[in-house]
């Protein structure tokens, strides 16, 4: 069974991101499953960053702590990863100063690049070196380089190809002199599968949901979705606006929705906090809104480039007053795509804010996935009506949903108000109208409940221990459970976090023990389950140092937990 974990370590500016981008594509194209994730510092130059690329003959989609081969692009970046290096880790690259007992192979990638003309080709030398291990030859990889660099300049493409070729030769020489190899003949045809990172999947899902306007203020790790939509705005009718701040962004989005557009805003915790008043405006005016909230560790500026699931409570409770909302939290590429699409549908139909909670780990990681069905939700038409002269924006209806007109479509006037308002949309302080309007807004929850899918279940059907998780922890727990084939554990993964359905209560009553696994310090999903469904959680496995869970951590924790449980 092939399952290799390569970790590339270097400083900012050395092109790790390009390695990740090109290598994963080549690896997948050659017929191997792959997965890549990066962890990086909040700086543009220097520091120490790393990127993990897994190569496998079966699907792998999670972060492992194990490093089979560590490729060092610069000398001083090693200490950063020392905890993950085991005696079996092979270290290659800039390792001359290392005193570790591992097998070490000094290769000065940077020097090779300098001989070609510049340090900036270092990453291509490294890629060539690794491609030699997989016997992915020049005729196969050159077109990728040409495509990637050719857009910038022909010369750049040529130089990088030369660098890759020299790296490749160095790789072959290395393999000839050392008894280290991880070659296995590719055995799967992955041509019908796709390779995407979380940001891309969210952006594509937004387009599938009809998104035609994005307003945002840059903030890691949410900017990827903005960049993706900007790059696709040439092919699809999408207006992209970098707003002066997040308050402007969401208000532009609301204006656009009001006038018939389908807007997305993307932000992280700090920016979302600034949007809170306008979230409430979306609730009050019943103007749809879709927000991608890509989490990073807080409070305040926190760890800008790291990951956390710390903002579930923020998403749940943000905004003054009482109004319905939906919170979705994709953990797979498929979910990211279909839930973002669904977010547009729900926002539109129910005239409410929908928050898609992602995080740095998810948006920045590359996954191999089944192709996404762009047409599956074509039924998700626009929920707008042509108005007539008697039109009232907040007409009271049985389900609380008033037909939504837009200005310029029909003979009616579309009046929305952030003050409490009459059916016609005008300011009022009539207590009876107030009561009715509160009830109308909250009533939408009832029908909404029926649209929320139950969580995904995987693991042993006749479990004794039930794991509960949400969002980006899907694959790490799945892989951990695969490694514990005898454990009597099942897992409920919530990708549609709020509202919660009472239908899931039996999952909990059947369990002897329930563990919540979350990337935060206070167990926010556990709190929500308790509050909403009165479900009792026995234990929590929480991580909040800014890094995602590793498969190994989950395995160790579950082993220990189930042993303790059996013994006691």
């Amino acid at each position, binding site marked *: 069974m092939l399952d290799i974990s390569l970790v590339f370590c270097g400083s900012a500016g050395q092109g790790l991101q390009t390695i990740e981008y090109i290598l994963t594509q080549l690896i997948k194209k050659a017929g191997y499953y792959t997965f890549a994730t990066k962890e990086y510092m909040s700086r543009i130059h220097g520091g120490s960053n790393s990127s993990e690329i897994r190569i496998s003959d079966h699907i792998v989609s999670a972060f492992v702590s194990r490093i089979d081969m560590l490729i060092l692009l610069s000398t001083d970046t090693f200490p950063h990863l020392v905890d993950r290096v085991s005696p079996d880790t092979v270290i290659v690259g800039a390792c001359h100063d290392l005193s570790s007992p591992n097998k070490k192979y000094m290769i000065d990638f940077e020097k090779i690049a300098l001989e070609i003309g510049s340090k900036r080709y270092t990453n291509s030398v490294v890629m060539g070196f690794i491609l030699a291990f997989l016997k992915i030859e020049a005729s196969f990889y050159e077109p990728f380089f040409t495509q990637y660099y050719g857009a910038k300049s022909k010369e750049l493409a040529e130089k990088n190809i030369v660098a890759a070729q020299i790296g490749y030769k160095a790789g072959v020489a290395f393999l000839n002199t050392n008894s280290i190899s991880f070659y296995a003949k590719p055995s799967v045809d992955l041509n019908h599968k*796709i390779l995407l990172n979380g940001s*891309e999947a969210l952006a*594509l899902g937004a*387009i*599938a949901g*009809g998104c*035609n*306007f994005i*307003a945002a203020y840059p903030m890691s790790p949410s900017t990827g979705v903005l960049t993706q939509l900007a790059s*696709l*705005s*040439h*092919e*699809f*009718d*999408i*207006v992209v*606006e970098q*707003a*002066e*701040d997040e*308050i*402007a*962004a969401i*208000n*532009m*989005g*609301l*204006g*656009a*929705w*009001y*006038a*018939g*557009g*389908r*807007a997305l805003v993307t932000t992280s915790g700090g920016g979302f906090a600034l949007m809170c008043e*306008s979230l409430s*405006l979306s609730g009050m*005016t019943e103007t749809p809104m879709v927000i991608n909230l890509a989490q990073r560790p807080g409070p305040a500026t926190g760890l800008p480039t790291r990951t956390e699931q710390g903002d579930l409570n923020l998403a749940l409770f943000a905004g003054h007053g009482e109004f319905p909302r939906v919170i979705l939290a994709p953990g797979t590429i498929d979910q990211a795509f279909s839930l973002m699409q669904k977010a547009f549908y729900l926002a539109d139909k129910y005239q409410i804010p929908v928050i898609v909670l992602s995080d740095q780990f998810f948006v920045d990681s590359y996954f191999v996935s089944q*192709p*996404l069905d*762009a*047409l599956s939700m*074509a039924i998700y038409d*626009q929920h*707008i009506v042509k108005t007539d002269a008697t039109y009232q924006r907040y007409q009271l209806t049985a389900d609380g949903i008033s037909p939504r007109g837009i*200005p*310029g*479509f*029909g*003979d009616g*006037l*579309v*009046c*929305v*108000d*952030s003050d409490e308002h009459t059916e016609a*949309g005008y*300011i009022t302080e009539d207590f009876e109208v107030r009561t009715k309007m509160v009830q109308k807004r909250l009533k939408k929850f009832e029908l909404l409940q029926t649209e929320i899918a139950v969580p995904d279940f995987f693991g042993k059907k006749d479990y004794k221990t039930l794991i509960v998780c949400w969002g980006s922890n899907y694959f790490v727990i799945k892989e951990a459970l695969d490694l514990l084939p005898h454990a009597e554990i099942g897992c409920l993964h919530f990708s549609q976090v709020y509202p919660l359905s009472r239908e899931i209560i039996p999952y909990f009553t059947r369990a002897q023990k329930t563990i919540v696994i979350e990337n935060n310090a206070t167990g926010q999903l556990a709190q929500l389950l308790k509050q909403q469904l009165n479900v009792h959680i026995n234990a929590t496995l929480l991580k909040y140092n800014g890094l995602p869970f590793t498969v190994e951590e989950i395995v160790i924790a579950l082993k220990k937990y189930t042993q303790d449980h059996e013994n006691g």
Partner: protein
Amino acid sequence: MAKHPLFDKTNIDIAWCPGCGNFGILESIKQALDELSIKPTQLVVVSGIGQAPKTPHYFNTHMFNGLHGRALPVATGVKIANPNLLVIAEGGDGDMYGEGGNHFLHTIRRNINIVHIVHNNMVYGLTKGQASPTSEIGFKTSIQTEGVIAEPLNPIAIAIAQDASFVARAYIGDMEKTKDTIKAAIQHEGYALVDIFQPCIAFNKVNTYQWFKERTYYLPSDHNRADRVSAFSKAIEKDKLPLGIFYQKKVDSFEKKQKIYQVSWEPLYQRHHDLGKLKKLIEEK
């Protein structure tokens, strides 16, 4: 008899003090719209919170009455989604220059084709008389008990400094000229600021009708609107405050520069993504 049958509303309970300058602004807007043959269904008025932003409740128009300070970005979004609509953003001096001050700067930069009407009464009306960003030094309130000590914000000078494409000031004591200025602003392609001096008879006992009458004058007929430097020097005059169109220039609007509107003005709601194209794009990933 209704003066503006299309726009007039009957049976409404107007929450303004009798004698307030806001009535004149409401009338001037309706008159301007009528004279330009604009229909209520073509017009969206986006407003914030305060006394001024209640204006769209009092005449027939599409209305987005949003949050305090946030009318400009909403108006921007409306115009982006449907450039065929006439969009007016309306509010008070606190709303537009205080809470929404950042949006003021950046809406000018975008030059989106909207009309920006500010009821400048140099006070916070709705919250009962605190100083506003345009209150004069020495203006005493229940909070600024010794009088305002900070320099007032000069919206006209700021807008000209930022090269806004249309910058005007009116005084509601002269409804006819106010209406003409609003008309010119509507006809202007691009962002158009109309700052209107509006006496608040309840909470501003300093800047009264009489005060504005004495302290304002119209820009001379030979004032060159195209000359930014002379417009700016007029804008910073303090003893007497000029009225009229200070500055105007012709430049493509924000929406005109959008790629999607270069071919047609079809609003967003009439456009649909080619999901087949999306499918293909995904398959190539």
